[in-house]
């Protein structure tokens, strides 16, 4: 009868638990490599380019110059003079949907995939 916990239940539980724990380590498999990088300063796009181009971009934020490097399909803020340097510590990013944000400089670097966003957000 099905009104008692079975061995198969326990096996299934163990398998699903392993699957769940495993899924925490599959970030790169699920996400795809970014395609375009967009730099926005105070909500205005100041640079837009291919993520695969080697390029150094310098923008003037509220706290001096911010040096952004696009290298090997990744993007990072390599130098900033903001107080916390969260943007610099974010490091190299390459996946579609990732972003590097510097609040003091009001700078947002977004990585976009090759598909457009049809709907911006849904909550269920």
């Amino acid at each position, binding site marked *: 009868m099905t009104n008692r916990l079975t061995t*198969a239940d326990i096996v299934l539980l163990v398998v699903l638990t392993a699957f769940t724990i495993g899924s925490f380590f599959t970030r790169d498999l699920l996400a795809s490599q970014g395609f375009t990088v967009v730099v926005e300063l105070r909500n205005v796009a100041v640079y837009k380019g291919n993520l695969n181009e080697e390029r150094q971009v310098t923008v003037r934020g509220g706290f001096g110059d911010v040096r952004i490097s696009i290298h090997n399909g990744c993007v990072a803020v390599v130098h900033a003079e903001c107080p916390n340097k969260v943007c610099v510590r974010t490091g190299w990013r390459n996946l579609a949907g990732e972003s590097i944000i510097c609040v003091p400089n009001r700078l947002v670097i977004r990585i976009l995939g090759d598909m457009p966003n049809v709907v911006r957000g849904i909550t269920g």
Partner: protein
Amino acid sequence: MTTFSPVRRLTLIAVLAAVGIALFVIESHIPMPLPFLKIGLANISSVVALVLIGTTSMMSVVLLRVVVGALLIGTFMSPAFLLALSAGVVSALVMGLVRKLTRNLFSVVGISLVGAFTHSIVQLFVVRYVYVQTTVVLHLLPFLLAGALVGGLIVGAVSLRLVRALPEVLR
């Protein structure tokens, strides 16, 4: 599965759908830290329906619950409704199939876990391919699976107690 007369079956579908709707509405008031994350309390009614009255009747319970539930909380025809509908129907089918194929290998706990995982995965893939055409939402997968694990266990445990107690009451 016990055989019921058509009237009994119809009554059971109605009662289980009503229970599912009530649980669904109550759960919609519980705040959750992530979108799409839910315990899935309403699934108790589907699991119990599957065991008591079979796959076909369970589908009626699920459809009634999703449609009436959405009308009550005001999400009818919204993305949330379409997600609940697609994930609800697919997970119900999978639960029915697993039960049919494995006979009595799994108890309701196993069935409920299968349902919870299917629900999370289907939902996320509908979001990924229908609503936001980006892979960003897939970052939610681990958290949704963890939620499905906990939710599936809670639903399974409650259903197990109900399935033990109900057949005698219904006779």
